[in-house]
């Protein structure tokens, strides 16, 4: 049930795209280039636990942005219609189902649906499975969210694969740097992570960063419950009895919201300060059930941490108008990936109105610097295939009068301060004491 193509049915454009998608699924020999449109395959979670907090905001962002681009409504430098003058057409695919299914879907998008580029993937497992296939097929692929540090360790000579989001190590280095500034006296640190690669890597990167930045702080407890467990009574007790000053968590989605609700109700978050690296994604839902002062991150300068530039104002306004809520960080990241693709395709130096070949787009994308809703993005790592940006953390603050959550005491760290250089793994760089880091 998850592998159907979800198209946009709320707008006239959506109907056109849906009809086109249906026609294409019936006559697969039709090529995108033949209709002169720039076809993008968007892959994100439309079902399962990641759909609500991540997938839906991402898909919504893609719809808003593509509609805006096709109508030429975006501010400069993206005020030209579509991509290189060609109208953009999207096919949205559900990321649920696991890596093997996603590889099949990817091949289908590239070989049968003839998309000109694929933008997507939240799951690190999916990114790791898709990257070699993308290189093999020569398919222009932009990963917009997955955080695995292994991506370019495994894809050592990338040509067609790019990532416009940040490596997960950046989240945890940033979290440790933030704590070193705002809670320098913290002595006892505890953690609770989902028990799979994401949680384990996050905890590893965070604890090693803390050893470097706050050597007096000691780890007193580490809990690794099963992902999607939902009930954390015993874990909250185990954390409570150790009386930590700081509780780090890379929880996301429903697990994160349940943890905050249960821990807050039991007073744990009054006694200790929680640091949630993905915390921003639920900023509209915590209401008064999260304590003021809880430290949250947005996995980069996204969502509530995005700068107040003209591009972001347009994006926030359009998203707000369409969906009656502010874009959270997954939405900003999707917008960033599509803007990066447009920038590269329009710098591929092909005739206006033509759709550049994947190799031409890839050459222009490599090492590019482009403007985004999150500010300037430099493709400055992994030989020009990995974005480098700063990261920001702040404290959650609930405005009871307006019933709205926000962030205060925001501190942003620039990219050179939190991003490992090429040629070294994140853990090696952290353990060596962040050599060459340039902090603001």
């Amino acid at each position, binding site marked *: *049930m998850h592998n159907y193509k979800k198209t946009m049915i709320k707008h006239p454009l959506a109907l056109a795209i849906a009809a086109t998608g249906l026609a294409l699924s019936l006559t697969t020999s039709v090529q995108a280039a033949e209709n002169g449109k720039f076809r993008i395959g968007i892959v994100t979670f*439309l*079902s*399962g*636990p990641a*759909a*609500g*907090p991540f*997938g*839906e905001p991402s898909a919504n962002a893609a719809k808003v942005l593509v509609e805006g681009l096709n109508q030429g409504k975006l501010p400069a430098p993206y005020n030209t219609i579509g991509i290189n003058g060609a109208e953009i057409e999207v096919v949205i695919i559900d990321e649920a189902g696991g890596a093997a299914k996603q590889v099949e879907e990817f091949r289908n998008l590239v070989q049968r649906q003839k998309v000109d580029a694929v933008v997507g993937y939240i799951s690190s497992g999916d990114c790791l499975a898709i990257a070699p296939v993308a290189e093999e097929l020569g398919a222009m692929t932009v990963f917009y969210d997955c955080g695995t540090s292994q991506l370019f360790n495994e894809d050592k000579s990338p040509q067609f694969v790019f990532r416009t989001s940040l490596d997960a190590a950046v989240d945890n280095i940033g979290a440790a740097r933030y704590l070193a500034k705002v809670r320098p006296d913290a002595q006892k640190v505890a953690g609770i992570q989902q*028990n799979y690669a994401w949680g384990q890597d996050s905890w590893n990167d965070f604890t090693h960063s803390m050893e470097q930045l706050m050597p007096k702080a000691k780890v007193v407890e*580490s*809990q*690794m*419950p*099963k992902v*999607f*467990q*939902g*009930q954390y*009574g*015993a*874990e909250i*007790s*185990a954390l*409570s*009895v150790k009386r930590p000053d700081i509780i780090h968590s890379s929880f996301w*989605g*429903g*697990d994160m*919201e*349940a943890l905050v*609700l*249960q821990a807050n*109700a*039991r*007073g*744990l978050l009054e006694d200790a300060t929680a640091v949630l690296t993905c915390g921003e994604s*639920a900023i509209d*839902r915590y*209401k008064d*059930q999260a304590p003021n002062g809880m430290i949250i991150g947005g996995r980069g300068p996204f969502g509530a941490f995005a700068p107040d530039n003209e591009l972001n104002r347009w994006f926030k306004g359009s998203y707000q108008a369409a969906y009656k809520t502010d874009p959270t960080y997954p939405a900003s990241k999707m917008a960033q990936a599509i803007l990066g693709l447009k920038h590269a395709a329009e710098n591929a130096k092909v005739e206006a109105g033509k759709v550049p070949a994947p190799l031409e787009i890839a050459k222009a994308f490599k090492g590019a610097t482009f403007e985004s809703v999150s500010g300037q993005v430099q493709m400055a790592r992994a030989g020009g295939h990995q974005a480098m940006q700063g990261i920001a953390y702040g404290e959650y603050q609930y405005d009871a009068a307006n019933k709205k959550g926000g962030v205060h005491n925001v501190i942003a760290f620039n990219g050179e301060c939190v991003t490992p250089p090429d040629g070294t793994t994140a853990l090696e760089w952290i353990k060596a004491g962040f050599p060459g880091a340039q902090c603001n």
Partner: protein
Amino acid sequence: MSLFAVLIDGTIYASWLFLVAAGLTVIYGVMRILNMAHGSFYAIGAYTAASLVGWYFNNGIGPVWAGYLLMLGCALVAGLIVGLIIERGLLRFMYGRDEVLMVIITYALLLVLEDSMKMVWGVNPYFAYQPYAEMGRSALAGLKVSNYDLMLVGVSVVLGLCLWLWLERTHQGKVLRAVIHDREVAMAMGVNVRRMFTLVFVLGTMLGTLAGALTAPAISVVPGMGVEIIVLAFAVVVVGGMGSIEGAAVGALLVGLSRAAAVHYAPEFELFVIYGVMALVLAVRPQGLFGRVLARKI
């Protein structure tokens, strides 16, 4: 302190496990249907309660206590409707089929219900925390515990007792036990087994939706939650002995306490401990703690 925390956490978790597993074991005990769709009933209860309770509290409709009644009432009504539709519309045509086929049918039902829920409630999380937050917390020997969680222990005990009394002390319960022991003889003695099946399936569905509704205020209700819960419920039912209410209660307590002990003393074994307990019990008693060895009819 840790031992006390293990007891408290283990008991709270066990009471929740029992709520989740009770419907599953009741249906299996009487109908011999390993109901994979039980997870979906749990999710339907959670979604129904979260959406209605959220609406009730967010709009300040009425007093707090009425919100709790609404939470329970809407779950029971949802269970009644869903249970009747599924039993009358689908399962009654399948009775007498092989148990394995019934697993496949209820698995298909799980998939259909999962996507139906997505159509009704979408993919965004539902957050109806008010019943959980309104009850506040207590300090027990220095450990802060949510009163809502303590209330769940009480609900679980009362529910378990009611089920036991119904089965052991009422005429209807005796008839039901006759069906459990020997369906064919019961039928020969004039018991309307099909009516019993309808009654039990609807009851099992209502127990599933009730468990979901009682859990909803403490979690974020998201798609896929029903799939996650079914494996855990199976583990409890298998440990206790499939079809046994007492078994489900003891199985839940065993699993709950073991898991709480692992979380406090050896967190690295937490993932393994539930299935470790299950493997250990099955190695010693393959029919589960309270399961009966049934002679195979030829």
